[in-house]
């Protein structure tokens, strides 16, 4: 199992093929193959990866022509982590940024007396605790 985190705009998403519900900014354990892997870096495409007119390599990887005309390709990743705008590993920069946004979002809801999801409330409490610990250490 691998821990991933939903970092997108919707507060909660459902993965129908896995039967899993993910709450934004809350870590979630999923099977390795569901988590998958992030896209790799762009690199020059080999001759056997070139496809006339661009688009894809024969393996279905994206092809991109950079400013000096070099054809580049990259491993597009797999599973949830291939969707970089929506999923990240907890502890990554993207996940931490999403958690910080969520803390502000929940705090604003609470300050205005709006309903707050239980999972979000726990997240806020955890974040506050970590902040307190950081303060003591400092």
């Amino acid at each position: 199992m691998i821990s991933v985190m939903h970092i997108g705009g919707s507060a909660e998403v459902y993965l129908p093929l896995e039967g899993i519900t993910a709450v934004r900014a809350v870590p979630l354990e999923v099977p390795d193959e569901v988590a998958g892997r992030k896209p790799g870096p762009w690199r020059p495409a080999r001759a056997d990866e070139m496809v006339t007119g661009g688009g894809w390599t024969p393996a279905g990887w994206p092809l991109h022509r950079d400013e000096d005309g070099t054809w580049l390709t990259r491993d597009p990743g797999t599973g949830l982590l291939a969707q970089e705008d929506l999923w990240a590993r907890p502890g990554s920069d993207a996940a931490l940024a999403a958690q910080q946004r969520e803390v502000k979002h929940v705090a604003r809801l609470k300050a205005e007396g709006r309903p707050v999801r239980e999972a979000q409330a726990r997240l806020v409490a955890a974040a506050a605790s970590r902040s307190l610990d950081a303060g003591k250490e400092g």
Partner: protein
Amino acid sequence: MTSTVLDHRWSMKRESVYNTPVTTDRFYPWIDGVDADWDPRPRQSMGQQGGNGRRSPLGERRYGTIGQGALKLRAELESKGGGVLLDWALGVSTVTAITGGSQQVFHTGITGTLLPSATVQVVKVLNDGTEQVETYAGCTAGKVTIEQPEDNITMLEVDVDARSYTTATAAATPAYATAPVLFDHFQGACALGGTLTVPTTTALASGLTAYADFRSWKIEIDQSIDKDRRVIGSRNQPLAGTPNIKFSGKAEFNDTTLSAGLVGQTKFPWYQTITTTETLDASFTQLQVVIPQLTLNKGLPQVKPGTTTVQDVDADITSDGTNRDIYVVVRTTDTAL
């Protein structure tokens, strides 16, 4: 994996660079009428080579060229998860945080001559339960239709030109926003005429006179894209032309506003607002479609004894010189597109 015939699905994501594919990450339920087709644009040599009793062209002188995709994407408009689709379909968006979510404003006011492009993935389930994963890159929304059918869900339909195609890319893992609320006819309210205050980044449009006679309407935005830019060795990104925007619908003949407006060529501002029961901030999630200026083309009501008179509405949407031609505003619990 074995799928059922309910597992057809499509997804999309806006591209940073035209025809550079990206992994799709927004998924939409399949609706009858969604269609994805790829034309390999085969060419058969004109040269005829006879011999050996042949009477038909030699197959070895036939080959594929740079193909072209044509997709029709349809989605019911919902309170969550629609931002990326609307952003790509209409071209421009702003997202502004409000308590509990965001207000997302979409319009067609692109700068320059190019519309945004997207990668679209269509997963078609074969009869044996396996899946054919079709991925299209360089997808341009050439025509967009927003429709409020009578007594039904508000729909978005996008006609797409695609630049490249593969079946080798793996299917993206689908995820859908939980518990979205569908925008529906029964929660709508139209307004016509008056002094329009266009939507801001945080407030809906306002100022018009309530007009309860519309039964249905449809707005068709044809971006007049040039999808035949075939340069040697490639096909360039379609250019957006002068958009042709049409409004049509049906309205009950309960007053003379429309018929007088037709004859007088009144320039009407119009909007429809749908307000759900899903809580957002101190209000509810909402969808608003705003036309700053429409002018009727034809259609005085045709009456028939003993029946309710419903008149056809046919109008051109033109620029009022100040505002965008159309705005779509979504107030949503989503915090981002």
